[in-house]
């Protein structure tokens, strides 16, 4: 089986710290395994292309989120997740865990994706909608729309929506 014959595309629709991991892990790993990879960043996934990432986890909407604490796994009751500062606190905990367990940061994975020549497409419509400027995005990205993605997807063996 020749790796060169396979390729992958990923639609990236979510931009919180936890949701940023799957697309960047899979994109960098696929590229390392010889697959050409295209990532299409749309809606809340688009800010993952900003030069300065300020990623947070959101406890609300992730009711199964539990963190290892004091030898057990602790979650937050849904009501508490609405309190200001809770997301920031959870994000600090998550980033500490990430560092402690030798997990790459999103910044690091994104840099490796760029190095591995993963093609990154920013959704033009999302840029207009949420008023993002290409100047605020990392270098080397393409701008495109649904047709740009579909053309790429028709040629890819693996198409993921995350």
């Amino acid at each position, binding site marked *: 089986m020749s*790796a060169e014959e396979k390729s992958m595309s990923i639609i990236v629709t979510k931009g919180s710290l936890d949701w940023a991991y799957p697309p960047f892990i899979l994109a960098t*790993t696929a590229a*390392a395994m010889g697959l050409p990879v295209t990532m299409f960043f749309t809606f809340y996934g688009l800010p993952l292309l900003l030069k300065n990432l300020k990623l947070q986890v959101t406890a609300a909407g992730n009711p199964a989120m539990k963190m290892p604490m004091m030898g057990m796994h602790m979650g937050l009751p849904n009501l508490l997740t609405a309190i200001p500062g809770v997301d920031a606190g959870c994000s600090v905990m998550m980033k500490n865990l990430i560092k402690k367990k030798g997990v790459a940061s999103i910044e690091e994975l994104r840099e490796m994706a760029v190095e591995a020549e993963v093609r990154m497409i920013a959704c033009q419509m999302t840029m207009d909608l949420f008023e993002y400027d290409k100047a605020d995005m990392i270098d080397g990205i393409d701008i495109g729309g649904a047709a740009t993605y579909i053309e790429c997807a028709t040629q890819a063996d693996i198409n993921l929506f995350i």
Partner: protein
Amino acid sequence: MADVTLDAKGLNCPLPILKARKALKEVPDNGTLEILATDPGSVADFEAFCRQTGNELLEHSENDGIYQFLIKKSA
């Protein structure tokens, strides 16, 4: 003795694979890359990596929580 040795101890998925890919670029064709890792998932991952990329996993072993892999770079 491997041509290049990569210390990936303490790193978690997918870093050992990503760093191995980079390290392989320094290895001459038919040369070998030794990888040391502590991620238990790296065993299955390096097997899959080698199957997909056509490089040969010559051997792998585990000693006291350290996984050692020897990969031969295909020409």
